[in-house]
């Protein structure tokens, strides 16, 4: 029984990491229908930023986290301005290739500048394990879980309650009509990128702290997993991204715990395909009817 609870905790903490990354994916996709392959690499940038400011400028945790969010937001906006904006009216597949190019650029540029070695992230918060009746949970796990939940609620509020959020929703439904009613599309899209990328920057610091290991290619695997999570939840939907993230985290943990660790990714993809077949737009996705 203890083991079962422990595995649930493991699954939730892994899931919260995927959810944190999936939120950014889903926001960007929701508004410009672009699979932002570079999202995982902004997460990497955030982690490296945290690494440097803590080691060199001795930032504390909160300021490292906030500054990483700023750096993430800035890099997201810059990438959008230079790489995606010129392609807004091109075929979507072109924008996708550009996103892949940006991702290659960030990964290899960072490898070139800072070497591809794995580094240890400064342990600015001491990890403490709490023992709840034989089930271990660490303070950083709780921190990540709580942050993921807070950010999710906050995002939902921004999207549903603020003027900017209304603009974002309008642009996502029909950019031309949104422009007609006086919404500044460029500004709205930049804001979305800033928001999504800030989340990735925060995730970089949190996950760097949790696993204590960062390298220039760290964004690749979780990036793809988070993307799968976003699709599973219904890409474009904020609650969907979180549910997808937690679902994948728990599935992965479950199949590893029953001894199928070699097939854990295969099982995740299999579940993904099955869910997509039953719900073609993901769990929370809106299935738009096609009109003639």
């Amino acid at each position, binding site marked *: 029984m203890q083991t079962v609870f422990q595995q649930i905790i493991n699954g939730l903490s892994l899931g919260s990491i995927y959810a944190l990354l999936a939120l950014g994916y889903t926001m960007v996709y929701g508004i410009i229908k672009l699979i932002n392959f570079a999202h995982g690499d902004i997460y990497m940038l955030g982690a490296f930023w945290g690494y440097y400011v803590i080691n060199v400028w001795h930032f504390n945790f909160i300021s490292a986290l906030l500054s990483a969010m700023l750096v993430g937001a800035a890099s997201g906006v810059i990438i959008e301005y230079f790489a995606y904006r010129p392609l807004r009216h091109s075929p979507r597949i072109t924008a996708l290739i550009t996103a892949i190019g940006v991702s290659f650029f960030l990964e290899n540029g960072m490898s070139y500048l800072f070497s591809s070695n794995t580094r240890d992230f400064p342990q600015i918060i001491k990890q403490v394990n709490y023992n709840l009746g034989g089930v271990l949970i660490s303070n950083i796990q709780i921190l990540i879980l709580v942050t993921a939940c807070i950010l999710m609620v906050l995002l939902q509020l921004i999207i549903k309650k603020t003027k900017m959020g209304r603009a974002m929703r309008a642009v996502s439904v029909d950019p031309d009509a949104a422009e007609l009613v006086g919404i500044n599309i460029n500004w709205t899209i930049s804001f979305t990128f800033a928001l999504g990328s800030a989340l990735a920057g925060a995730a970089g610091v949190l996950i760097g702290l949790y696993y204590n290991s960062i390298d220039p290619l760290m964004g690749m695997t979780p990036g793809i997993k988070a993307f799968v999570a976003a699709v599973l939840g219904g890409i474009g939907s904020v609650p969907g991204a979180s549910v997808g993230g937690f679902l994948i985290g728990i599935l992965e943990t479950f199949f590893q715990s029953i001894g199928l660790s070699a097939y854990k990714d295969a099982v995740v993809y299999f579940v993904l395909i099955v869910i997509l077949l039953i719900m073609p737009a993901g769990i929370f996705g809106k299935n738009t009817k*096609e009109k003639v």
Partner: protein
Amino acid sequence: MKTNFKYNIIWFIIMVAGFYLMNTLILVGVINTFIENMLVTIGINIILATGLNLIIGFAGQFSLGHAGFMAIGAYATAIITQTATTPVGFYLSVFAGIVVSIIAALIVGIPTLRLRGDYLAIATMGAAEIIRIIINNMKITGGAAGIFNIPQLASWPTVYIMVCVTTIIIVNFIHSRGGRAVTSVREDEIAAEAMGINIFKWKLAAFVLGAATAAVAGSLHASFLQTISPNDFGIMESISILIIVVLGGVGSITGTFVAAIVLGVLDTVLQDFGALRMVIYAVALVLIMIFKPSGILGTWEFSIKRIFNRFKRKERVEQ
């Protein structure tokens, strides 16, 4: 019919000429092992990318799982030619690879091709990953170490001939009734359906044909390189094939050829740049996409027919 036959004959002559040109250059020593290596890699990429272009460019189905079908072909050849070390064994293994990958394409395609756009992309990517992970955990495939010391039964002439054959098949398919049906599905599914086209059947046909050519490319890859491992067929391989298709122009076979050659040459030239190579590659990729969003050639196609027609028109004017 007769005119089509004429153009096919002309293409055939060009292909034979190209073959002799290569042969001569190798004999003279202009093409050494290094360049031969590069050309074969380009050839294999052409086969892969034309197949994917059929699926993405002509049928309009966004598939990200091409490397999975390539893996099936590669492993079929690697396993069969281990025991049957003859050219016959090789062609048998190519055939086996095609059959298995067609079966896999049907298993993957029948359920997933109902999905649209990015959902289809992620589902096919998942399917390819499942194939790769299964290969990675099987005994007969050598697990993560893969298979090496595969006898080299495919040298550049085999690859050259296969490039020609698959291209002829795909181009003729595109220009056939089926090809027009496939293109109509891309343009407007509902209109196509209203015209009495079984859209699902034609989507699946394009998908299966693309998968079969990927298997051929995989066989050639395994036999030429003499070593394969599951890591060769990951998501990144699917993406690099996709890059060739988009860079050349979605829906242009000529573009695919040009892009495969450009990227192949670029990749080898960049070997001189060490750690910077991938940075330069990435920048080049982004710049090409920004300044040429529809790819190098867009949907433009090199056509002998058109050139002849132009001649004809000129003659008429002169007369």
